[in-house]
C-alpha cells in the first residue's frame, strides 16, 4: 500500500522507510513518523472504536492529549493497551491493534450499543443495575467489565526493566517549545544547571508544526539550532521523550523518560522507562497550550480533527488527513490552517467561521457567521452540513474537518498543589492562578501568552527572573523577529439545534445531552458532573473535553464559566505504566531479604525457611525420612529438652546503650527497675506504650557500669529503637546516654538443653568459667572463644532449659554455628528452627507477639508486679487507669484439652462449660497453641477473665469460624518445669 496522502517536505527521514502493521494490515511510513501520522499518510482515518457505543473514531489531536486513537502496541508479554497513536513513534516492524472492536475495527458487533444509546445515558450504571441486588456481583458487573474498558493485557510478566533516578538542577524547564528554548538558552548561557524536558521525541513544540519564521530561519530550523547549542553546554541536560508528570512539594518534580519505547528491540541491559525525581531550585512551566474542539452534531466521525493537529500533520509529518479539508473555527488561528493547507496543495473547499465579521481567506471560500450542524460518512467523514448565516443549509464534500475553538493554556502542573486557575475573558480560557507550586513560574502560551513573540520574550525574561531569585544575573537572549498576532476569538462552545448527538468527551462518549441530563437531575457541582457522566476521566483526563463540559454546564445554569467552576488537575499529567511506578521494586526486589549469619549453613542442612519481616529464618530442619513438618519439629523439641539444641536468634533487635546515665535511662523506658542491676547480670524487661499497654519485651544485660546491651523482639527492633531515641532526645534531653542499633553487628545463637554447658565448654576459651557457680542463671559477660575470638555470653533461656545465648561479631557467625554443631556431635545436638522455638516457649508459658498484641497490659500478662510504682517510666501512669487495672480482668493462663486428642486452636474464644456461646458470654481467648511433644497433647496459652483464680476450671474453646468447640481445662501457663529448676541447673 502506498502513502496516498503523503505530501512534500516535513521533518521525516524519507531515506529510512519503515514497515509496520495496524490491525493485521501492512503499511509503510518513515523515520520521524508517529503511528498516527503514518496511518494518515496511508489514508487511514479509522483508528479505534469508542468506549461505550463503539462508534468509529479517528485521530483528533497530534499529541498526548489524544482521546480517540488508542491502540494496543506490540505483542505477547510486551503488549501495551491504551497507547496513544499520536505519540507512538514509528519503528521498523511496529505492530499495533485497534482496541474495543470485535470482530474487526470496520465491523464491530458491539456497535449495537449505539442503537440502544437511549438506555446508556449518564448514570446508567446507577439506574439500570440496581435491582435485584444479588445480580450486581454475579451478573451485571462481569458483563459490564467485559463490555467496558479499552485495551486488553497479556497477563504475562512484563519482561522489561524499569528504573528510578534522581536529578538536581537550578532550573527545570518543562516543555521545549519556543518559550522553553528561549528560557533554556538564557539560563544555559549564564552557566546555571538546567534541565530541559519535553514529552516529544523532537524538541521545538509548535515551532515544528508551524510555517512561521523566526528572524531569517524557519521555526523548526531555529529550534534545531537552539537545541544544538544547548546540547553543547555541559550545564544543560536535554531530556526528550520525558514527560514531567507531577509538581510535588518544595520544587520536586516527577518525570517519566521513555528510554526504549521507540526502539524495535529493547536492549536488555537498559531500562525501558525511568521515573525521575527532579529536585529543582526553580522551575518554569513552558508547556504551551492545547487547542479545544467545538461540539456539534456527529462531531466524532473519523476525519473531524483539531485544526492545529491538521497543521502538525501537514507541516511536520507531511501527512494530509484527507485530500479535501474544510475548516470550522471561531478565531483567526483557524485561518492559519487554511493558509498552510493551501500552501501544501491540499484543497480547502470552505472556511466556516462562526464570526459574522470573520476576515477573508486567500484561496478558500469563507462562510462567515456559519456553523456546522452535521456530518456524514459511516467509517469516515464524507461531507459536512453547514447552516449559513442566512439560515440556508449547505452540504460540503470533504474528508476531514479541521476544528478550532480556541486555545487552553496547559495549566495542569500549576494545579498539582491545589492552585486554582483563573478565568481570562479575552482568551476565553483558564490561565494559571496566583497560587503556584513553590519555586514555579509559568511562561509563554501556558501563561496565556499565545503569540510566538510573546512566548520567546516570556521564556527569556522568565529565566532571567528565576535565576535572579537564586542570585545569578542572567542576560536575556536576543529575540528574533516573529509572529505576534493578537487574540481574535469569539467564545463559541457548541452548535445549538443539531439533530444528532454532539460529543463533548470523545473518550468516554459523553454528549451535550448527557451534560444536560445531569443538570436536570440536579448535579450542580462540576465535580459531581464529572463523576456522574464520567466526563474527563480515563487516559486523557479530559484534556480536550473538560473545558467544553464546563461551558455547556455554565450555559445550562445561566452562570458564567468561572462561576461554574473548573476541575482540578492531579498527577500524573499523562498515564504512567505500573511498571514504571514500581521501578526495580518487583518480585524478590519488592523488599530487601535479610539473611541470618547461619543462612548458608542452614541451606546446606536443607532447612525450610520462613519470612519474619524482611528476615528469612530457618523454620525447621527436616531429616531424612521425615515427611511431615511436625515430625521435624517434635524431634527438634524433644532432642533439645533431652540433650541440646542450637538456634539462630540474631534477628532479635540489639541496642547498645552507653553513658553515665544508661541505667537511669533504662529505668525510664522499661516498666521494671534497672538501676540496681549489677554488672554482669541480665534482666528481663517489659516496655510499655505511654497508654499503659505492653508493646515489647526483651532483656537488658549490664556489661559495665555505663554499658548495657538491650534486646528487643524481631518485629519491634525498629520501633523500640525509635521510641528510645524519642525518650532520649525529646523527653530526657540531658541524660548522658548514647544509643546505637547493633542488630546486624552480632551473630547470636541460643544453645539450650541439659548438655548446653558441656557443649559450650568445648568452645569457650579455657580461662572462661561457665560453671553454674561462676556463671549462674541470668549472668552475662564478655568472653573469648575458639582461641581468642571476642564474644558475649548471656545465660538466658526462652526455652526453659539450661540455656545460653552466645554472640560473636557477625562475620564469625557462620564459623560459630559450624563450630557449635561440630562440638555438639557427641551430644547428638540438633539445630532448631522458629517452630520448635515457638513450641518450647509455649510449653514454658513465655509471652511473644501473639500475647503482646497491642491490647494487653503487664497486669494481663501476669507481670503486673514488675511495673515499678516507685519511679517514672513510660506508660506507668496510664497503666493504672481504672479500665486497665481490673483485678478480675484478663490474665495469661494455660489450657489443656480435656480429651487428650482434641486440638487447642489459637484464636478460639473461651466460654463457660455450659450455656450459650456468644460474644456476651465471652471469657477470654487463646493466643498461642501448639502440639507439645513433651506432654503428648495439644496445649495453648491465652487470656482468661480472672484467670489466676480459675485453675482447674473446665471451659469450652469455641472456634465458630471452623465450626468446632473443644473442652479445655485451665492450667498454669508454665507447662514445663514451673519451678524453673532446669534454668538454674
Amino acid at each position, binding site marked *: 500500500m502506498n502513502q496516498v496522502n503523503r505530501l512534500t517536505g516535513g521533518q521525516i527521514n524519507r531515506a529510512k522507510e519503515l514497515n509496520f502493521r495496524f490491525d493485521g494490515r501492512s503499511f509503510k511510513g518513515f523515520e520521524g513518523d508517529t503511528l498516527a501520522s503514518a496511518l494518515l499518510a496511508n489514508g487511514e482515518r479509522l483508528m479505534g472504536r469508542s468506549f461505550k457505543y463503539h462508534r468509529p473514531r479517528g485521530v483528533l489531536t497530534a499529541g498526548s492529549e489524544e482521546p480517540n486513537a488508542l491502540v494496543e502496541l506490540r505483542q505477547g508479554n510486551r503488549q501495551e493497551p491504551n497507547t496513544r497513536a499520536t505519540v507512538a513513534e514509528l519503528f521498523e516492524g511496529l505492530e499495533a491493534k485497534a482496541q474495543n472492536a470485535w470482530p474487526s475495527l470496520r465491523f464491530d458487533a458491539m456497535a449495537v450499543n449505539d442503537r440502544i444509546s437511549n438506555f446508556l445515558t449518564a448514570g446508567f450504571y446507577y439506574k439500570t443495575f440496581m435491582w435485584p441486588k444479588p445480580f450486581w456481583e454475579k451478573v451485571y458487573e462481569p458483563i459490564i467489565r467485559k463490555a467496558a474498558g479499552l485495551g486488553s493485557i497479556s497477563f504475562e510478566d512484563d519482561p522489561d526493566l524499569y528504573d528510578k533516578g534522581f536529578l538536581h538542577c537550578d532550573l527545570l524547564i518543562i516543555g521545549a517549545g519556543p518559550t522553553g528554548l528561549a528560557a533554556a538558552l538564557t539560563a544555559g548561557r549564564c552557566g546555571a544547571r538546567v534541565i530541559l524536558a519535553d514529552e516529544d521525541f523532537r524538541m521545538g513544540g509548535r515551532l515544528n508544526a508551524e510555517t512561521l519564521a523566526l528572524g531569517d530561519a524557519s521555526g523548526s530550523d531555529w529550534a534545531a539550532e537552539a537545541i544544538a547549542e544547548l546540547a553543547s553546554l555541559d550545564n544543560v541536560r536535554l531530556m526528550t521523550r520525558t514527560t514531567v508528570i507531577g509538581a510535588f512539594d518544595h520544587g520536586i518534580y516527577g518525570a517519566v523518560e521513555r528510554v526504549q519505547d521507540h526502539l524495535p528491540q529493547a536492549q536488555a541491559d537498559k531500562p525501558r522507562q525511568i521515573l525521575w525525581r527532579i529536585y529543582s531550585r526553580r522551575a518554569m512551566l513552558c508547556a504551551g497550550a492545547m487547542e479545544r474542539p467545538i461540539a456539534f452534531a456527529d462531531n466524532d466521525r473519523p476525519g473531524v480533527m483539531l485544526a492545529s493537529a491538521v497543521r502538525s500533520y501537514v507541516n511536520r509529518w507531511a501527512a494530509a488527513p484527507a485530500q479535501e479539508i474544510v475548516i470550522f473555527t471561531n478565531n483567526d488561528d483557524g485561518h492559519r490552517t487554511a493558509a498552510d493547507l493551501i500552501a501544501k496543495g491540499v484543497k480547502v473547499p470552505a472556511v466556516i467561521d462562526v464570526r459574522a465579521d470573520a476576515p477573508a481567506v486567500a484561496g478558500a471560500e469563507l462562510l462567515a457567521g456559519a456553523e456546522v450542524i452535521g456530518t456524514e460518512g459511516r467509517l469516515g467523514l464524507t461531507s459536512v452540513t453547514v447552516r449559513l448565516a442566512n439560515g440556508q443549509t449547505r452540504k460540503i464534500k470533504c474528508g476531514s474537518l479541521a476544528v478550532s475553538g480556541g486555545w487552553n493554556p496547559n495549566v495542569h502542573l500549576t494545579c498539582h498543589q491545589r492552585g486554582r486557575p483563573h478565568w481570562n475573558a479575552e482568551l476565553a480560557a483558564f490561565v494559571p492562578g496566583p497560587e503556584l507550586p513553590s519555586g514555579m513560574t509559568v511562561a509563554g502560551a501556558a501563561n496565556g501568552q499565545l503569540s510566538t513573540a510573546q512566548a520567546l520574550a516570556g521564556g527569556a525574561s522568565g529565566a532571567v527572573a528565576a535565576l535572579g531569585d537564586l542570585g545569578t544575573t542572567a542576560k536575556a537572549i536576543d529575540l528574533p523577529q516573529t509572529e505576534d498576532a493578537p487574540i481574535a476569538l469569539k467564545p463559541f462552545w457548541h452548535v445549538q439545534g443539531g439533530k444528532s448527538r454532539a460529543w463533548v468527551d470523545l473518550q468516554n462518549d459523553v454528549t451535550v445531552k448527557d451534560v444536560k441530563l445531569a443538570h436536570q437531575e440536579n448535579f450542580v457541582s462540576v465535580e459531581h458532573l464529572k463523576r456522574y457522566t464520567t466526563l474527563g476521566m480515563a487516559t486523557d483526563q479530559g484534556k480536550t473535553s473538560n473545558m467544553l463540559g464546563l461551558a455547556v454546564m455554565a450555559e445550562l445554569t445561566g452562570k458564567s464559566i468561572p462561576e461554574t467552576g473548573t476541575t482540578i488537575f492531579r498527577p500524573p499529567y499523562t498515564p504512567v505504566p505500573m511498571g514504571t511506578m514500581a521501578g526495580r521494586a518487583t518480585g524478590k526486589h519488592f523488599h530487601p531479604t535479610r539473611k541470618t549469619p547461619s543462612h548458608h549453613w542452614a541451606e546446606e542442612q536443607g532447612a525450610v525457611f520462613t519470612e519474619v519481616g524482611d528476615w528469612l529464618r530457618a523454620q525447621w530442619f527436616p531429616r531424612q525420612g521425615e515427611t511431615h513438618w511436625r515430625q521435624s519439629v517434635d524431634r527438634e523439641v524433644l532432642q533439645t529438652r533431652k540433650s541440646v539444641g542450637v538456634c539462630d536468634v540474631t534477628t532479635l533487635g540489639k541496642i547498645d546503650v552507653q553513658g553515665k546515665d544508661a541505667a537511669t535511662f533504662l529505668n525510664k523506658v522499661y516498666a521494671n527497675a534497672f538501676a540496681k542491676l549489677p554488672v554482669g547480670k541480665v534482666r528481663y524487661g517489659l516496655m510499655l506504650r505511654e497508654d499503659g499497654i505492653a508493646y515489647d519485651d526483651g532483656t537488658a544485660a549490664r556489661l559495665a557500669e555505663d554499658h548495657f546491651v538491650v534486646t528487643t523482639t524481631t518485629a519491634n527492633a525498629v520501633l523500640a529503637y525509635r521510641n528510645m531515641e524519642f525518650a532520649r532526645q*525529646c523527653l530526657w*534531653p540531658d541524660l548522658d546516654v548514647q544509643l546505637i542499633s547493633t542488630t546486624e553487628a552480632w551473630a547470636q545463637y541460643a544453645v539450650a538443653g541439659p548438655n548446653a554447658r558441656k557443649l559450650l565448654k568445648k568452645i569457650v576459651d579455657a580461662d572462661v568459667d561457665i560453671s553454674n557457680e561462676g556463671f549462674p542463671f541470668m549472668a552475662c559477660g564478655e568472653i573469648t572463644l575458639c582461641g581468642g575470638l571476642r564474644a558475649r555470653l548471656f545465660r538466658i533461656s526462652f526455652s526453659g532449659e539450661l540455656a545460653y545465648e552466645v554472640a560473636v561479631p557477625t562475620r564469625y557467625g557462620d564459623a560459630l554455628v559450624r563450630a557449635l554443631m561440630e562440638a555438639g556431635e557427641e551430644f547428638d545436638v540438633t539445630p532448631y528452627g522458629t517452630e520448635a522455638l515457638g513450641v518450647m516457649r509455649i510449653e514454658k508459658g513465655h509471652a511473644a507477639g501473639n500475647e503482646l498484641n497491642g491490647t494487653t497490659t503487664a497486669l494481663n500478662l501476669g507481670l503486673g508486679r514488675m511495673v515499678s510504682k516507685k519511679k517514672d517510666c513510660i506508660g506507668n501512669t496510664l497503666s493504672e487507669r481504672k479500665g486497665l487495672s481490673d483485678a478480675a480482668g484478663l490474665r495469661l493462663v494455660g489450657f489443656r484439652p480435656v480429651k487428650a486428642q482434641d486440638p487447642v486452636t489459637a484464636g478460639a474464644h473461651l466460654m463457660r462449660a455450659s450455656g450459650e456461646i456468644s460474644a456476651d458470654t465471652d471469657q477470654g481467648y487463646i493466643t498461642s497453641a501448639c502440639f507439645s511433644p513433651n506432654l503428648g497433647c495439644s496445649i495453648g496459652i491465652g487470656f482468661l477473665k480472672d484467670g489466676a483464680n480459675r485453675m482447674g476450671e473446665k471451659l469450652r474453646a469455641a472456634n465458630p469460624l471452623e465450626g468446632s468447640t473443644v473442652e479445655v481445662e485451665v492450667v498454669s501457663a508454665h507447662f514445663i518445669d514451673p519451678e524453673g529448676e532446669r534454668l538454674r541447673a
Partner: protein
Amino acid sequence: MMIDHPLLGLRDAQEFTYLGDASLIDRPDWQAEDAQDAFHDYLYLRDNPAGAHRELWFHETGDRSWLVVTRNTLTHEITKVELARDVARARGRSK
C-alpha cells in the same frame, strides 16, 4: 518534601518517619496530683490545625535526630526546623 535539617541541610522527607504534634515533648509530671488526667490529655488531645503546625519528625534513615518541623499543613511550606533536643531543653526538660 524537603526538610532543612539543622545539622545536615536539605534532606528528602522520605528519609524521615513522621510522628505528629510536637506537644508530645511536654510529657507531664508523673507525681502531680492530676497526673492521670494530665497524661490522658497529653496522649490523646493533639492539635491538628489547618495551617502552621509544629510536628515531630525522626531522621530514621539518616542521623537519627528527632526534629521539630514547623510546617503549614495546607501548603506544606516549612518555616522552621529545630533539633527536638534543643526544643525539649528550651521547654524545661533538662533535669
